[in-house]
């Protein structure tokens, strides 16, 4: 004979379990659109060998004692989370590079009539026009103006590179600051999670929060995580532990431009190729801007070298040797050195010298015009550089290749990141349809348990009425 009062307890345990399941459905549905919310499941176990003080327990009794909730399980997927973090780091790096290159490309709107290539054409053609009429002051002035426009075009391009580098430096400092903050927060959450786990309390919400922070961290810097048994995670950047359990270390930035370095607080070692936005900015500062800057400087050096040696090979209308046309051999410093238009050496030094009056030979000016197609130009210190226009075209092609490759990578990376996020969300997020199905299921289960209790109650009533 079984014990009716204990049957009531069985029914009660079923009611309580259904109630908790329904609560959880409510929690899940409420958080269906919460980013980073990871679904939880109740762990249920059948109770056996139930014992109630005050009631006799027959020997050898094996009847079930109801159901009990033994805990909750978080549907976390560390593999998919790791994938998502890795993709976020790759995206962060490419996005930073893409933004910088897009900014640089605005300074080189080629091919068009607004770019530096057009300034080159105008400049060299102005020398041809001068060769037609070397005595005309207006023509001479227009050569100087075209030279100034070209020098200013190169100055402006150089300024753009400098400001892109400065922007990248500022963004790097901001990103490092937020990495340090996020690392501290992750370590603090690790502490709370550890305490909760050790105390047997649910830590799901804390873990959700922490995983959200990890995702933000991955945008900034390439991270790898390792889960610990107590629910905490260690976060590694390269081989260095940014967060180890409840401890976090920090990064600091020093230097600027291509000399920017990131240093770990723990051992003072340097962080190389970090990944994430920081890695992208490191590439911009350490590689993209210096490479393009050197190319642009070489354009300026080639232009100055070609023009200055050509000026030296010619004479002015009054027969004096030509003075250097450009001063400065870098894109930032190049400027027109000649202020007096009569100093333009339009005449060839080998043309017959004029005994008095004006030497109106224009063959040196014509030769300078032909420098537009020169394959080489004398560089500083006896070196040979590619011709100015050739150098410039190479620079634009290099820039285009860099930007195009980063754009392509960024496009496919965006898709990959989105796919990883989708996969993680599909694996761990809330499936509303499933939740609603479960809701109906637990509603029925609640009803069934209630029915059971009412049946037992009636049974007890029947028994008592027999007694009475």
């Amino acid at each position, binding site marked *: 004979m079984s014990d009716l009062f204990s049957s009531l307890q069985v029914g009660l345990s079923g009611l309580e379990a259904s109630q908790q399941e329904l609560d959880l459905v409510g929690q899940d549905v409420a958080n269906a659109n919460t980013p980073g919310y990871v679904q939880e499941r109740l762990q249920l176990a059948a109770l056996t060998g139930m014992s109630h003080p005050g009631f006799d327990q027959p020997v050898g009794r094996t009847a079930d004692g109801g159901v009990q909730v033994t805990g909750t399980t978080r549907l976390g997927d560390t593999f998919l989370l790791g994938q998502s973090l890795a993709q976020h780091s790759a995206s962060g790096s490419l996005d930073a590079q893409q933004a910088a290159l897009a900014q640089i490309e605005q300074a080189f709107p080629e091919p068009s009539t607004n770019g530096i290539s057009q300034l080159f054409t105008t400049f060299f053609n102005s020398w041809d026009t001068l060769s037609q009429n070397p005595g005309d002051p207006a023509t001479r002035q227009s050569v100087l103006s075209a030279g100034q426009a070209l020098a200013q075009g190169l100055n402006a391009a150089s300024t753009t590179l400098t400001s892109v580098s400065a922007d990248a430096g500022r963004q790097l400092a901001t990103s490092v600051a937020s990495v340090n903050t996020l690392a501290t927060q992750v370590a603090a959450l690790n502490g709370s999670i550890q305490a909760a786990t050790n105390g047997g309390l649910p830590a799901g919400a804390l873990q959700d929060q922490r995983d959200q922070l990890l995702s933000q961290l991955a945008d900034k810097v390439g991270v790898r995580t390792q889960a610990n048994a107590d629910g905490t995670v260690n976060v590694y950047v390269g081989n260095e532990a940014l967060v180890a359990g409840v401890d976090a270390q920090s990064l600091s930035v020093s230097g600027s431009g291509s000399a920017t370095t990131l240093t770990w607080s723990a051992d003072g070692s340097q962080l190389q190729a970090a990944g994430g936005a920081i890695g992208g900015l490191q590439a911009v500062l350490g590689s993209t801007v210096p490479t393009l800057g050197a190319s642009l400087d070489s354009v300026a050096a080639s232009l100055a070298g070609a023009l200055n040696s050509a000026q030296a090979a010619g004479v002015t209308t009054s027969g004096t040797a030509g003075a250097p046309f450009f001063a400065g051999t870098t894109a930032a410093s190049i400027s027109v050195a000649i202020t007096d238009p009569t100093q333009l050496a339009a005449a060839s030094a080998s043309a017959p010298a004029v005994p008095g009056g004006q030497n109106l030979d224009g063959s040196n000016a014509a030769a300078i015009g032909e420098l537009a197609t020169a394959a080489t130009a004398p560089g500083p210190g006896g070196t040979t550089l590619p011709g100015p226009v050739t150098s410039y075209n190479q620079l634009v092609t290099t820039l285009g290749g860099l*930007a195009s490759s980063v754009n392509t990578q960024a496009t496919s990376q965006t898709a990959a990141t989105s796919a990883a996020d989708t996969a993680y969300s599909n694996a761990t997020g*809330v499936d509303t349809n499933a939740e609603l*199905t479960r809701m109906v299921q637990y509603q029925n289960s609640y009803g069934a348990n209630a029915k059971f209790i009412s049946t037992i109650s009636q049974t007890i009533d029947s028994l008592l009425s027999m007694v009475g």
Partner: protein
Amino acid sequence: MSMRVTQYGTDLAMIQTLDGGLSRLSALQEQVSTGRAINLPSDNPGGTATALDLSAQIGRFQQYGANATDGANWLDTADGALGTVTSALQQVQSAVLSGANASASDSSTRTALAQQVAAMKQTLLQAAATSYQGRPVFSGTWGSDPYAGAASGDYTYTGSPQAQTRTIGPGQSAQIGVVGSDVFGSGGTSVFALLDKISSDLASGSSSALAGSDLTALQSAMSQATDARAKVGALSAQLTQVSGNATQKVAALQASVAGVVDVDEARAVTELQLQQVSYQAALATTAKIIQPSLVNFLG
């Protein structure tokens, strides 16, 4: 267990699909509205390199054309001056012939002829001083008057021994015109000195000199002027041709640049429409999928 799909995951995937469609649409939109397939170097680095190279060539050939046109105009001015020179020398020749045949006593005729020749010398000096845009055309590379001392009887050529040149092609230059000494000579052997001699021979009635050395020298001067004119004419024709060729070359190069840089309108518009259709389809599907869940069907 079948693959688990959540509403949030589906939303992420759909947003990504729609973003992709929209960005492809906006790229095509930019191409169609600007008419250019390359708006930035990264749109097509190889095409940009080609276009830059071709554009630099266009700049050069436009300038070669301008150089040739300027040269041709210069030569046409010289040609006009040389026309004046040859006709003046022909008049001098008839004066010499008349003078040689006139009787020694007919002094009034001879004086008139002498004055006519003296006037012709002035015409020749004016022709020699012809300038194009303020520049003496017979002084070569110098800006000085070709016969600066002519007024005081010094006929020494004061221009440059070297003619002007113009760049008319890659590494090609053409000589512009002839220098004054080649047309008019210099000093005692110049045509001006000859005309002075003829003038005085006419005045003094030395028929033998007129019919002999004067006539020979004059004919040689005439052939010098005619040769110079022929040379100038040939150069002018060449430069006009060069200028025409440069224009054609520029047009051909511009067509090549357009082939690289400009968008194929028909193809771009067709692609734009296809992309619009697929974007609208994606929007319609998304709207249909996002809407319902089991909520709509639970009583």
